[in-house]
């Protein structure tokens, strides 16, 4: 049906008064206060998509006497610039430190907005970023298009030597871990007792596993649970005040995933079926669950087949 002139005019009148050219893509950075001189910028809990500009990771802003400290810097140059402006306006001090928790692009592709000296991580995380960091570029540009304009991953210019760093009177404990990826960094803000877990902890948002080592990840969760803390900021999903429910939930999901996939392989099932497995009721509140489950099937299933299915060829008989 062709719309009449009248419906067209009514439709036009209903449009907001926007200029006729496309509005530039803009990230809305909305820091929520979560403690003394500490703010959380919540990421979208969906997958990386043009609708969210890839801004799916949680970011933390901390004020210190010497300047602003950030944990992770988002998916793109444009995000990094908006974050820097917001954080520096909020605290009134320039960004002096950006901790990079791990190599995944939703956490570190905003790095180009910062001075390399400010970008800091452990030697292990830096090595993974140098090896693989830029390989995410094509995929990010494909998924996000113009959101990514000008984004070129900047390598960390500072390697953190010790297990803590004090900046302007505020001490950050640095926890060198692995499991979500080959090298992960978690940070304890000692002033507020806030454990900033990076992607070692997901909360009410399904964990993603492209570089996961599940036994190491479990060990890292045990270590995080043993670190005294009052609240926890996960890499994705809402803050946890309990403060270990999110750690337990991440452990529970990973254990279920591993057990389910092993049982599927051992019963002769296949990847399509494993990806369609019913998600247990206790995970009903977890977003992006089917999507991450199907990604995880892709990450683990072929390896589990090689490990668990018996050899049947005549070379071994």
């Amino acid at each position, binding site marked *: 049906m062709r719309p009449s002139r009248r419906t067209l005019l009514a439709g036009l009148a209903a449009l907001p008064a926007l200029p006729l050219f496309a509005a530039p893509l803009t990230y809305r950075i909305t820091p929520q206060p979560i403690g003394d001189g500490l703010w959380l910028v919540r990421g979208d809990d969906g997958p990386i998509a043009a609708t969210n500009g890839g801004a799916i990771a949680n970011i933390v802003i901390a004020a210190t006497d010497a300047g602003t400290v950030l944990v992770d810097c988002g998916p793109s140059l444009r995000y990094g610039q908006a974050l820097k402006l917001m954080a520096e306006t909020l605290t009134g001090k320039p960004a002096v430190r950006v901790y990079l928790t791990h190599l995944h692009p939703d956490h570190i592709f905003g790095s180009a907005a910062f001075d390399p000296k400010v970008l800091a991580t452990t030697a292990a995380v830096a090595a993974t970023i140098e090896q693989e960091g830029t390989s995410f570029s094509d995929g990010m540009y494909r998924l996000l298009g113009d959101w990514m304009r000008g984004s070129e991953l900047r390598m960390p210019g500072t390697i953190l030597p010790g297990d803590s760093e004090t900046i302007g009177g505020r001490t950050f404990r640095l926890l060198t871990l692995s499991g979500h990826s080959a090298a992960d960094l978690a940070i304890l803000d000692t002033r507020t007792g806030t454990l900033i877990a990076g992607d070692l902890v997901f909360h009410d948002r399904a964990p993603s596993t492209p570089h996961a080592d599940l036994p190491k990840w479990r060990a890292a969760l045990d270590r995080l649970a043993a670190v005294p803390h009052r609240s926890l900021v996960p890499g994705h999903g809402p803050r946890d005040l309990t403060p270990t429910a999110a750690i337990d939930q991440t452990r529970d999901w990973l254990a279920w995933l591993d057990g389910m996939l092993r049982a599927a392989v051992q019963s*002769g099932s296949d990847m399509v*079926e494993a990806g369609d497995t019913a998600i247990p009721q206790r995970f009903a509140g977890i977003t992006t669950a089917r999507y991450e489950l*199907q990604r995880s*099937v892709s990450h683990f299933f*072929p390896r589990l*087949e090689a490990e668990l*299915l*018996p050899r049947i060829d005549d070379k071994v*008989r």
Partner: protein
Amino acid sequence: MALGTPQRDPLGSPNWQDLSASLLGEGDIRFDDRLRVTMPIIAENQHMFPVSVDARALGDVRRLALIADLNPIPLAIDMQPRPGRAFVETRIKLDQRTPVRGAAQLADGTWIVSGNWIDAAGGGCSAAPVSRVRGDWAEHLGEIRGLGVAEGEGARLRLAFRHPMDTGFVANIPTYHLETLTVANDRKETLATLEISAAVSEDPAFSLFVDAKAGERLTIAARDTNGLDYRAALVVGAAR
């Protein structure tokens, strides 16, 4: 549907008309979701995208094909299922965003087709296999892992081969892939026959349903494009 007025492709594929003519030949084509094509919502790995085609609800199916329209090798699997056993699951390469479909030919020659679009980063057909990059492909060539489990009136088979499945689109690596797979019982009855192209992923894996009972011994025979034969045997396990 009157003869000579083909149904419009519900997926709006740019090349379906030519492709279906060359792959499926004569015979009416009907689009029908009773042919179940199941795949993940995301192509996490374009070298290895799992798809299942299940035409068991269609009754007597003579041929079953797995097709990705916009792959340089569109036809991944072409099999002649036994009655009631028109099912296959495997992993395929994706070279770009493409419709992925199953096609089942009935006894009267009609093709039943269904499927869906899947978005993919692409390049799945033109990247060197992991085992070629690692350099250990020949060491493991022809290793077969597998399992048979009684299910309903038959048995479900899972078979996983080590093979580079070279497409021929990588410089200095000619086409080299498994091309046939058959499953037989000890009475020499053929239970499944598949033709396989290089669109199937490296280290190809297949799920099939066959007419066999718990305790029955089955033999698996495969041949690749260099004429190498691979053989395996398994005993169907009890239902789980």
